[in-house]
């Protein structure tokens, strides 16, 4: 009976286990989903900090935000160079320039004469928000969920618990409301400080709001009641933004989530303390007009986006690059977006489970970590890279792209040894630039996923030139269709000219010791990188002392000018050379002005050219200015021009062709999949293997046998039993 009961329990357990799996494979991590649904499965590596478009400034968070919120402009998915196109507006904004006495100036008016400029935007009518409880009204027109009592809120734990949902039309006032939020001290937008230098009256407005908030502590502040001279809605569908002077790059900001619309109803709805203490806030439940809405938000586990039933007309692009036709990227031209109905994102903190689930077909796309690189990628017969045979046989596709980013080794130009603008200081930096073999770094630490940089502007951005014309002559030479690093001998000669023959100070005879300031988190890879860096410097007999510290102290060293040599990176916000060249603009220096110029490089000629280049369109004149600037910085070498990283993305065969576009943050709407194909392959790839289980059980019983025999013997024994007493 007892044995029978035990088996009954085991039977119940297995029924529950297998029952939980339904008809799916035992190892499916999506037991509640059907693989034949039009759903894409993906992952996020870190819990988002916020999904409020006014606060978020991270690429990971943009994966969600950009599918839900719609700024007025977007980047064309296929065209290169990157092109801004209208998203919720009828046309690109009309830009007008005005003098100090409010007189309209011609487009080519000199920058000095422009007191302010205006950007006028007309919104397309009939765009509606995704269904949301904030819009629900009763018969008398009162919002039914805006003033919930504790009793009414007691059964609510997520947005799904609201029974009624409604929508309303997008208006120009919603865009203005969000710009006002950027200035609101309670919101603490990360770009407030930066934008307040450009948007007219933003600082004053922020101060005004701070005062009003103090007077109305604990109450909802309807920003519509407080006019802002930097952004004004002129009618239901039109609004204007006022910018100090001329800032041509501002148009790119209009494609970022910071400038998305925010309905005041949402602000009031989420300001209720009853909802805030249940974590129902704008940080976690976005509200937008985009192709998707947030169906489920458990940032600690899973985020689900679902197709917005109210999404406006948005056809797939009909224009593309010639290679796009060949790759089948224009097959869907003119069809309405989005294609995928649902996106399920799971939190995957560790790369190994993510990678294995991708191989099992449970994630549709994946990047490649260094540990798995050799499993997926091999060098082809022609010397290029290709997928390994196993991956090819599985029909996996590889997409590669060069990121609009740069990683570099910076010299603190304020430092008495590596900094300065004299000839000798320049020679020292040039010598180090030659000795530091970035090709080797890319090969060892990035598995070849990077391009050696020739200057601050990466591939795909105006001003970048490939081939012989684009090389940095102070580090490379052009040899029969490829670049070649200058020999180490040249570096040694330069070092001698700098006053350090054979790595020794010619005045004192002491060895040259330099300090490398690095961030250390205790990662074993970091140690290898530091060791590699030491070796590079030792080629010139320079002793490198590594000063490893945590990230906070490292940033502090940069801010105070106490770092000597350091490694940094920059990822573009928008595809304009200004977004890279400003990293070397003098008045942007970190120590003096708190800007992004971490090396504190300051060259009057460069700065002058920068100001001219900044206000130019992408013309020949602009290219010439950029070339002049590149010439100056290559000679001064405030950076060792490191590398432009490359991204490799793997997709399963059921995923349609995609084109990497880092600036089109809302690109999930273009993706297409074949769910039936996925279902078949998942079943094929994941049959459970039970024999090892039986084998282990067999071994267990086999091991138990001598124990049982011994037990029986022991029970039968008499006096022997007590011999150890």
């Amino acid at each position: 009976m007892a044995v029978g009961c035990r088996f009954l329990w085991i039977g119940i357990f297995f029924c529950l286990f297998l029952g939980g799996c339904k008809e799916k494979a035992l190892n499916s991590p999506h037991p509640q989903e059907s693989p034949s649904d039009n759903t894409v499965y993906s992952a996020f590596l870190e819990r988002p900090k916020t999904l409020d478009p006014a606060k978020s400034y991270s690429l990971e968070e943009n994966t969600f935000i950009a599918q839900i919120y719609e700024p007025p402009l977007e980047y064309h998915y296929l065209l290169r160079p990157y092109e801004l196109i209208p998203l919720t507006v009828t046309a690109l904004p009309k830009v007008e320039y005005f003098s100090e006495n409010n007189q309209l100036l011609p487009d080519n008016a000199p920058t000095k004469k422009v007191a302010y400029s205006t950007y006028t935007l007309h919104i397309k009518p009939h765009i509606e928000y995704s269904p949301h409880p904030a819009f629900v009204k009763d018969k008398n027109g009162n919002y039914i969920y805006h003033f919930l009592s504790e009793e009414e809120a007691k059964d609510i734990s997520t947005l799904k618990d609201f029974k009624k949902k409604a929508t309303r039309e997008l208006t120009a006032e919603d865009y203005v409301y969000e710009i006002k939020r950027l200035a609101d001290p309670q919101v603490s937008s990360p770009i407030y400080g930066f934008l307040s230098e450009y948007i007219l009256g933003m600082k004053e407005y922020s101060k005004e709001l701070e005062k009003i908030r103090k007077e109305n502590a604990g109450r909802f502040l309807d920003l519509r009641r407080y006019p802002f001279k930097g952004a004004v809605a002129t009618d239901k569908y039109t609004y204007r933004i006022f910018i100090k002077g001329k800032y041509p790059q501002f148009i790119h900001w209009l494609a970022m989530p910071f400038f998305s619309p925010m309905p005041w109803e949402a602000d009031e709805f989420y300001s209720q303390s009853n909802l805030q203490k249940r974590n129902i806030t704008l940080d976690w439940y976005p509200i937008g007009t985009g192709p998707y809405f947030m169906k489920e938000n458990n940032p600690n586990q899973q985020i689900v986006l679902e197709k917005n039933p109210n999404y406006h007309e948005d056809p797939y692009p009909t224009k593309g690059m010639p290679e796009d036709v060949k790759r089948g990227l224009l097959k869907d031209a003119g069809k309405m977006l989005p294609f995928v109905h649902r996106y399920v994102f799971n939190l995957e903190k560790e790369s190994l489970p993510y990678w294995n689930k991708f191989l099992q077909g449970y994630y549709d796309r994946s990047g490649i970590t260094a540990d798995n690189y050799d499993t997926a990628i091999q060098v082809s017969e022609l010397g290029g890279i290709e997928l390994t045979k196993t991956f090819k046989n599985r029909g996996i596709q590889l997409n590669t792209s060069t990121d609009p980013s740069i990683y570099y080794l910076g010299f603190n130009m304020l430092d008495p040894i590596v900094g300065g603008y004299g000839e000798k200081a320049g020679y020292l930096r040039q010598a180090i630039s030659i000795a530091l073999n970035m090709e080797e770094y890319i090969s060892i630490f990035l598995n070849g996923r990077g391009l050696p940089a020739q200057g601050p502007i990466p591939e795909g951005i105006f001003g970048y030139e490939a081939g012989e014309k684009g090389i940095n002559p102070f580090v490379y030479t052009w040899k029969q269709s490829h670049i070649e690093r200058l020999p180490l001998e040249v570096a040694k000669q330069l070092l001698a000219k700098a006053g350090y023959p054979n790595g020794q100070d010619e005045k004192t005879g002491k060895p040259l010791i330099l300090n490398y300031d690095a961030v250390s988190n205790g990662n074993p890879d970091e140690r290898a990188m530091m060791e590699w860096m030491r070796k590079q410097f030792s080629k010139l007999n320079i002793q490198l002392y590594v000063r490893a510290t945590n990230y906070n102290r490292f940033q502090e060293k940069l801010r105070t000018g106490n770092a000597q040599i350091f490694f940094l990176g920059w990822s573009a916000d928008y595809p304009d050379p200004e977004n890279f060249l400003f990293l070397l603009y003098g008045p942007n220096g970190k120590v003096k002005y708190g800007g992004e110029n971490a090396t504190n490089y300051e060259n009057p000629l460069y700065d002058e050219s920068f100001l001219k280049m900044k206000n130019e369109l992408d013309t020949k004149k602009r290219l010439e200015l950029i070339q002049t600037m590149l010439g100056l910085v290559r000679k001064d070498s405030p950076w060792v021009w490191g590398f432009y990283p490359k991204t490799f993305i793997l997709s399963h065969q059921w995923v349609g062709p995609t084109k990497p576009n880092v600036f089109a943050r809302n690109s999930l709407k273009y993706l297409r999949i074949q769910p039936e194909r996925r279902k078949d392959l998942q079943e094929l790839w994941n049959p459970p293997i039970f024999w090892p289980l039986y084998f282990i059980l067999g071994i267990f019983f086999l091991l138990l046998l001598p124990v049982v025999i011994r037990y029986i013997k022991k029970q039968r024994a008499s006096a022997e039993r007590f011999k150890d007493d």
Partner: protein
Amino acid sequence: MIKYLVRRLLYAIPVLLGVNLITFILFFSVNSPDDMARAYLGQKYITQATIEQWKKSHGYDLPMFYNSEVSGIAKLKETLFFKKSLSLFAFDFGQSDSGRNIGDDIRHRMFPSLAIAIPSLLLGLFLNMMVALLLVFFRNTYIETTGVILCIVLMSISGLFYIIFGQFFVAKLWRLVPISGYLSGIDGLKFLILPVLVAIFSGLGMGARWYRSLFLEEIFKDYVRTARAKGMTEHMILLKHVLRNALIPILTGVVVLIPSLFLGSLLLESFFGVPGLGSYTIDAINQQDFAIVRAMIFLGSLLYILGLVLTDFSYTLVDPRVRLE
């Protein structure tokens, strides 16, 4: 006994205050409010004005312990320590630096932690004791020697190895369970199998050896000899007498663990994608979210103290001679 419990709970107040103070000092000696603002706001285009705005809106613009700009008791109350740390004594965990209600997060995240911790503890305890009793039963035989060697082998292997081994063989090669993930309800049962097995086997070596030594201490005592003299079988002696008498040290180790089960396992939760409180703490440390760090340390200390009190209390249950006074 009530007096004793009240006294123990009152002792907890200075302990918790001390823990709070040390956490506060340690955290802010590594991270300044400016660093926290930068960690939250990101590194791009951040100006001092933005940082000041963030500090003000999150209450980090106050002095640490003493506010000379106000008068009276406000000198102590209008400080970071009072506002951020002492409110915990009222179980007001407040909001995380990213604006989430910490109390609500803890309420939601303790269940996934418990879903792994409870079966791991119960099954692990049962298995450890059974193996230990078996080794004691077969003491001075090759079975005991082999068993002890196996225990040492199991102890010597890193916990991470069990995770990777389990994920590789059971989930990847044999495809019997998902590699990682979590789901509440009956569908989520299969996600628990592997982490629970890993937790049990990674603790088996140490647990079995420890319990074996406890049982061996008992097995040579007079009452065991008396039981044998009365004709009891060896396995009955082990299960009825030795096990019961060895319960006090076992309880010391186990009861103290019970409250901290809520806090979850840092390693298991990270590798198996379980949204429990273990990963919550690690994330908070990585994101420099002081509000969560202080709340979790406070909760951890409180649960530890509670565990010790429960242990004392449990002594009276297993040994009638013990009285709490």
